[in-house]
């Protein structure tokens, strides 16, 4: 997997918004790659730019700098006509299944929307495909004739997934796909996404704030802080031995039923706003190990050792003790 060219790649991707209070650097030189059939988990807090990144990769937001490559093709500045064949292969699942389905449209038409847009076939062929898709996501066949309001949150997310996979895309970006759902329903949707991946070989970019969930489903984890990637690597390595102090802090902060009452590495303060970013390392005001160098010099995202599968943007990687080593 490492040798082949990535399916989706972001190179030095930047998005800057002009607001009355000044320039907001929502994304600042993001480096990211997703390979075929792989699941990448993108983790970050509010203000990290994770949702902006999703919408930018899908070209719903215009990048102000850098480039996006999809299967080798630069798509960062394509017009909507030239983008259409890319859209067919790159789809999205939204966080809120109550907002992402048009309440005035029957489920059959919602799922058929991408099929019609890409001239999948005649009426009968589309109807047959919709029926097949509804069955694949575990919905009854008569669902096509009903409205979204007649379904629960979990069922609506199944409808949204059916729409996303209708054209058998190469990749799906899922922005917090289960966080709006009840705990007992979340696992159903996670398993459905995994089954679909096993069957169709779709690559996922899953955006989530829930680290255990990302660890559960992702091959690789990318950690975003203030619009920059601060750490990236294989999921089990990142969780077992975080190299960036922010990753370590995020892991320690995550409440789980297994680790309750353990000593915590507590990160102080709030994530700063992207409007007034600190100089040097953007994390240094909250960092427990920050030194003078961190206040003046911004660390680049580099591999900590030659040949390592991981990358970290920290002058002193790995100095924070892994928070979970004692528990597991």
């Amino acid at each position, binding site marked *: 997997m490492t040798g082949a060219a990535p399916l989706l790649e972001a190179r030095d991707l930047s998005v800057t918004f002009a607001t009355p209070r000044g320039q907001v650097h929502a994304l600042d030189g993001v480096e990211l790659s997703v390979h075929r059939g792989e699941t990448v988990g993108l983790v970050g807090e509010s203000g990290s730019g994770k949702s902006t990144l999703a919408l930018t990769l899908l070209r719903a937001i215009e990048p102000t700098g850098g480039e996006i490559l999809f299967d080798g093709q630069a798509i960062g500045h394509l017009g909507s006509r030239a983008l259409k064949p890319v859209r067919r292969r790159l789809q999205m699942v939204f966080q809120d299944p109550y907002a992402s389905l048009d309440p005035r449209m029957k489920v059959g038409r919602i799922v058929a929307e991408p099929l019609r847009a890409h001239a999948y076939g005649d009426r009968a062929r589309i109807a047959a495909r919709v029926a097949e898709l509804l069955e694949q996501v575990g919905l009854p066949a008569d669902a096509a004739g009903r409205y979204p309001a007649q379904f629960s949150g979990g*069922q609506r997310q199944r409808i949204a997934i059916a729409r996303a996979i209708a054209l058998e895309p190469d990749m799906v970006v899922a922005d917090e796909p289960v966080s709006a759902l009840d705990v007992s329903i979340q696992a159903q949707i996670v398993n459905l996404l995994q089954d679909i991946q096993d069957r169709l070989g779709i690559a996922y970019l899953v955006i989530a704030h829930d680290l255990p969930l990302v660890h559960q489903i992702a091959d690789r984890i990318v950690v975003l802080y203030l619009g920059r990637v601060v750490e990236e690597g294989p*999921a089990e390595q990142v969780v077992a031995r975080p190299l960036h102090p922010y990753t370590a802090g995020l892991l320690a902060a995550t409440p789980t039923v*297994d680790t309750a009452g353990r000593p915590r590495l507590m990160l102080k303060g709030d994530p700063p706003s992207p409007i007034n970013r600190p100089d040097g390392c953007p994390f240094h005001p909250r960092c427990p190990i920050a030194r003078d160098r961190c206040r003046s010099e911004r660390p680049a995202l580099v591999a900590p050792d030659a040949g390592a599968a991981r990358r970290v943007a920290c002058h002193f990687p790995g100095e924070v003790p892994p928070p979970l080593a004692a528990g597991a």
Partner: protein
Amino acid sequence: MADTNTPPDARTEAPLLEIRGLRIGFPRPDGPPLVVVDGVDLSIRQGEILGLVGESGSGKSMLALAAMGLVPAPGYVMAGDIRLDGRDLVTLSEREWQKVRGRTLGMVFQDPMTGLNPVRSVGALLGESVRRHQKVGPEEAAAISEAALKAVGIPAARERLAAFPHQLSGGLRQRVMIALALVNRPRVIIADEPTTALDATIQAQILDLLRDRLHEAGGLMITHDLGVAAEICDRIAVIYHGRIVETGRTRDVLAAPRHPYTAGLLAAVPRFHGRGTRLIPIRGAPPGPVSERVECSFRPRCAKAAPECAAAPALEAIAPGRSVACHHPVAAAPAREDAQ
């Protein structure tokens, strides 16, 4: 009615907050009212945090609102009583409730922005609450307010008194709301999903604060997140479809759940050591509210459902301080102890 959810060491002490047989209903034009909380017993003792864990629609928030006298119309308390320090709250008038809320009962909500009046400064909000409930002058009220902000870990407390809620970050706003809940030293604090809207690193800070402050009184913590309950609650009560299905000490319940629903929730949550294994979902979805229940509400989703489950089980003690409402509880803890 046996007091089933009391740890043995606390049995002698009278509970601070005691809820008995609470039923909350919503009338409807064509039939008997829909019952959203159906015969719930709970008690909280001094220095204890009870976690009420449930999913959306379980009735957990309605129960919390009832304990604060805030059941939204046309909902109403159909039966049962709520005692705070021995005093029955259900029969209170709105005027009497206003003396209880903010004084003996502190409240923390999920969204600090809706819980705080946006046009009042932090100092005004705290000062008003202090002067409404305590006989003190303005200077003393300001001093009490400042101390309350310090107690919730707000730096530069004196300057923050002049700030307005919208000028504060989400984490600071939630700290202000906790300060407001605590400023009159209430006997019981009810926190409804207090960290759900917060980022992970802020959530950890607020949970730490709540653990310390709620233990000074008595705390009822409403949450959907077992991890959050595990962090700060001494005991938990799992609520499903308006009824408590399992209670016990947090450690015991999470280590060896006895109700199939609790066990199912635990198997459905991703954990750090479970990578590579599939999550085990609970099939189906929670039922909507009903006016009368016949069978066990969890029966349609339960892998262990049996003919007896056609009759709804009562919450019964199975061990000291431990109760379950199930005809076929999950087997007790496996022999293997989890490593520390």
